[in-house]
């Protein structure tokens, strides 16, 4: 027990280009001997190459290997994820306002068009005229009394679904959007872990 080191890899780490990644950067270490732990944390594991592009996967086996090579008497216990995703941040992408406004306009006009096409597609004008007649008994061409609240409700419904207005007040649960972003990121991580990690697959033609 005295010589046991517990290793937990971090899920995702950001580094600068040409940085040297040490064990302490990508993992948490726990052990009885503080001095040993500090020494282990300094061990360099990997130097980022320009050819790595922006994702590098480091396997837990590499960490164990480095620790065992430093001190063979240590027993290593690993906890948590089996690999760390290292993201190389080249330079902060500059946020362009023009670009953003263009996307904003694209979405604005696109969704406006989409809703108009939807209305035509389901003949909503006739349905609304009919509804007006059902309620009042009168015939009318433009039942705006129904249609203006409808249009406003459209926006309210979308905001309600994504829960951006009452976020703090109603509950702490993440909105569907946040869950969706999380799931997407998880799938991407899963993909790079398998595809960027040379250790995780072995092909016949590898040699």
């Amino acid at each position, binding site marked *: 027990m005295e010589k046991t080191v517990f290793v937990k890899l971090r899920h995702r780490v950001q580094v600068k280009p040409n940085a040297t990644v040490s064990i302490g950067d990508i993992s948490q270490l726990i052990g009885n001997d503080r001095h040993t732990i500090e020494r282990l944390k300094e061990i360099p594991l990997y130097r980022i190459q320009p050819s790595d592009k922006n994702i590098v996967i480091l396997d837990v086996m590499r960490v164990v290997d480095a620790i065992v090579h430093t001190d063979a008497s240590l027993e290593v216990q690993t906890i948590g994820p089996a690999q760390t995703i290292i993201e190389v941040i080249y330079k902060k992408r500059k946020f362009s306002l023009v670009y953003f406004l263009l996307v904003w306009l694209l979405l604005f006009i696109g969704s406006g068009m989409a*809703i108009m096409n939807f209305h035509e597609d389901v003949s909503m004008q006739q349905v609304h005229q009919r509804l007006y007649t059902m309620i009042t008994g009168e015939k009318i061409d433009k039942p705006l009394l129904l249609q203006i609240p409808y249009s406003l409700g459209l926006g309210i419904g979308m905001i309600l679904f994504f829960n951006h207005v009452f976020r703090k007040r*109603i509950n702490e649960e993440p909105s569907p959007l946040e869950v969706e972003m999380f799931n997407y990121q998880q799938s991407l991580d899963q993909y790079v872990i398998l595809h960027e990690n040379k250790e995780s697959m072995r092909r016949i033609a590898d040699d």
Partner: protein
Amino acid sequence: MPTIEAIFVIFIGFAGGLAVGTGFIAFLVVLGVIPRLTQLTKTMKWIHAYEWSAVLGAVVGGWMSLRNSVLYTSKYWLIPIGLFHGVFIGMLAAALTEVLNVWPILAKRIGVADKIVVLLMAIVFGKVFGSLFHWIYFIDH
């Protein structure tokens, strides 16, 4: 109408209704609007009442539109009806963009994860504006 034909027509009508009804509920379930509403209002235990509300709404709406019923009441009832109608369609539309995974991909591609609310507002305003434009102006032309 001879009995056998009447039975046949009843059967066809019933079968058609069954197919449309199951389709409608399947659509609601896939988009998850009702669970979202219960989550927002914290009324999970009333979920069965909500099921009945959707079923009764479909039945009453179907009945009234097929029978051409007329209520002869105040036209101001149309304001709350329109509002509810809009909120429902809005939630459907929001749920639909969600099923299609539009947001995460958009945010990743153009790298504006922190501005996503502003983009969401673009869609919301686009819908409201497009809808108003349609009813007030486009219909006449």
